């Protein structure tokens, strides 16, 4: 496995692979955070999560095109505006979906799964009709391109660094919102005991709507960030959904920390295996490992033992 590489080379391999793993980790975390909130906190299976991401990506694409045409001076910073708009667009759509569909389906998780799959099909076709079937690319500002050479053999792509920084920032914001703010307290109260939370004056319907919107909004930001590393097409969202769900389930649905830990484990495993095995084999092995571990520990990595 290691033959043919010198020690120094192996060192750089592991450093760069570690970094590649970290980028993948960031990508997973971004994808999974929104889902962890929706699935973990609300118990809703949102199969259209990928499409909410792609909506964010398309918003970014629109911004990129508009800004480069009408305000080229602002181009270097358009990305931040695009992310905010992506959050708002996906979040609003999420709230609309919650209001029109999800709220009738609480307590029927398998049915939300089917209904949101239907939603994902509709969104895909809308994307196709509006933006065309062809994949669109987003032009990145120059400062996001290229890489930083740490040593002769170790180079770190800047957009990777940016995605990582963004991931960290979003994670911190979510942590503060969910665990430090009064609103987050309300959300957790509703999720733990709906009736009681209602009784003490929390508007549970509103909490549901905003929570779902928040989860979808984060998906939008994730989609926006993905335009830097991946492609945006009408069906791109579907590619992510299984991976994302496995990350969330593997982490233990109720725990944000678990989601992060599981994203880390899966991304490092996949990235390392990809280096030594072929891409397809790595993917199969990663998925299988996750499934086997889930069978041994169905509640996921991190979960509170509760009294039934």
């Amino acid at each position, binding site marked *: 496995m290691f033959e043919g590489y010198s020690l120094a080379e192996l060192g750089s391999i592991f450093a760069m692979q570690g970094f590649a793993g970290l980028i993948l980790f960031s990508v997973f975390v971004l994808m999974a955070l929104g889902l962890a909130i929706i699935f973990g906190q609300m118990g809703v299976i949102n199969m259209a999560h990928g499409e909410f991401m792609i909506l964010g990506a398309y918003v970014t694409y629109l911004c990129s095109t508009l800004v480069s045409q009408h305000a080229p001076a602002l181009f270097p910073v358009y990305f931040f505006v695009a992310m905010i708009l992506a959050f708002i667009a996906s979040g609003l759509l999420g709230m609309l979906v919650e209001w029109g569909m999800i709220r009738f389906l609480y307590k029927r998780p398998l049915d939300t799964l089917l209904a949101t799959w239907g939603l994902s099909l509709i969104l895909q076709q809308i994307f196709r009709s509006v933006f065309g079937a062809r994949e669109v690319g987003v032009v990145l500002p120059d400062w996001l391109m290229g890489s930083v050479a740490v040593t002769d053999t170790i180079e770190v792509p800047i957009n990777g660094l940016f995605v990582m920084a963004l991931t960290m920032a979003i994670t911190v914001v979510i942590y503060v919102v969910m665990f430090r703010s009064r609103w987050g307290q309300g959300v957790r109260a509703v999720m733990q005991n709906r009736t009681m939370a209602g009784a003490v004056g929390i508007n549970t319907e509103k909490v549901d709507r905003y929570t779902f919107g928040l989860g979808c909004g984060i998906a939008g930001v994730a989609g926006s960030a993905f335009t830097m*590393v991946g492609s945006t097409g009408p069906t791109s969202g579907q590619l992510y959904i299984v991976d994302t769900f496995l990350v969330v389930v593997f982490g233990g649905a109720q725990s944000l920390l678990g989601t992060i830990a599981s994203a880390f484990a899966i991304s490092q495993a996949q990235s390392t295996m990809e280096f030594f095995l072929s891409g397809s084999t790595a993917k199969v092995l990663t998925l299988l490992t996750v499934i086997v571990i889930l069978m041994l520990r169905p509640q996921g990595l991190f979960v509170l033992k509760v009294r039934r």
Partner: protein
Amino acid sequence: MSSDKTSGGLRSPFRRKLLLGMAALPALTLLPRGAIAQALATDAVNTTKLAVTDSTVKVGILHSTTGTMAISETGSVQAEKLAIAQINEMGGVLGRKIEVIQEDGASDWPTFAEKARKLLVEDKVAAVFGCWTSASRKAVLPVFEQYNGMLYYPTFYEGLEQSKNVIYTGQEATQQILAGLDWVSKEKSAKSFFLIGSDYIWPRTSNKIARKHIEKNGQKVVGEEYFPLGHTQFNSVINKIKLTKPDVIYASVVGGSNVAFYKQLKAAGINLEKQTLMTISVTEDELLGIGGENIAGAYACMKYFQSLKNPNNEKFVAAFKKMWGGESVIGDVTQAGYLGPWLWKLTVEKAQSFDIDKIAVASEGIEFKEAPEGYVRVHANHHLWSKTRVGRARMDGQFDMVYETADLIEPDPFPKGYQ
């Protein structure tokens, strides 16, 4: 019977003019219907009950207009329709206007087979222009062989196939690959190659041929990697590329993965102006999605580029843009799609018959001098003799042709020594 002989003796352009002129004569309308047909008796040119009347002939177009493949196949549909429109403008085939029945394969292989059967059994079309992926072709092939239809298949593909019922207007793998490899070895003094592709039959077979050729030339393959279709994380393999420092990255990544691959290459600091990358899977169509800034400098090995400088191509590009809009781009497969109806027309006229069996035989040696890619000729194995060209991707989404083979390359779908 005698009239059949007469018309057979006429050279086709002359006959066409003659017929058009005759049709214009008001006196002729007084003649019984059979009188016109006598010139090209339908019974004679169509002995197998195809959908050919005295004035029309039906053909099928079978591509995906929905689903994941729709985007790739749209160009072929447009090119085929353009060719058919042009042929009709010139008077049709054996004096018969072409009527198109278009079916949607919906990116789903059984649907392709089902629709192929419909076209052949229900509509009895004289030819079908269609299919894009190998999988769809494999699915319809038994149908064409069973019901004796004729398929014009436009995509460059892995080879290893030959059928009486298919004309392959795109290149098979050795045509596309070998000349390009030789050029890059000579031009860039390349000694080592890194092969990377999507995980399915075409990239794997192509890379197999490439590897054999590379090793035969005494050069080295330093890596060969495949990723599932739709894969979007290439950082690991890019690290591997950086470590193995190949002279040439040889890429056959397709679809959505393409965008991610080139973006991440660029982000990882691999400058394609310095690092030689040769791809066999990026045409002008794909360039649009990848974005010129991400791939500029890469070499693509194809038989056609939209920027080719020759009168045929200029006419073709102008006509295409007139019909489908100035924004449209034309890739290798689109051009190959355009060849299909023309080759069929020429063959029908050579055979003086729509019968599939006759077309299959008459196809050998058919020459199409007005082809946008230049002169092409049909080989006995139903593939085309064609040149191989190398183009360099530009920022604006076009290619600059940097090399073309001097001669037409013989198609060799079952290459000895490469299997």
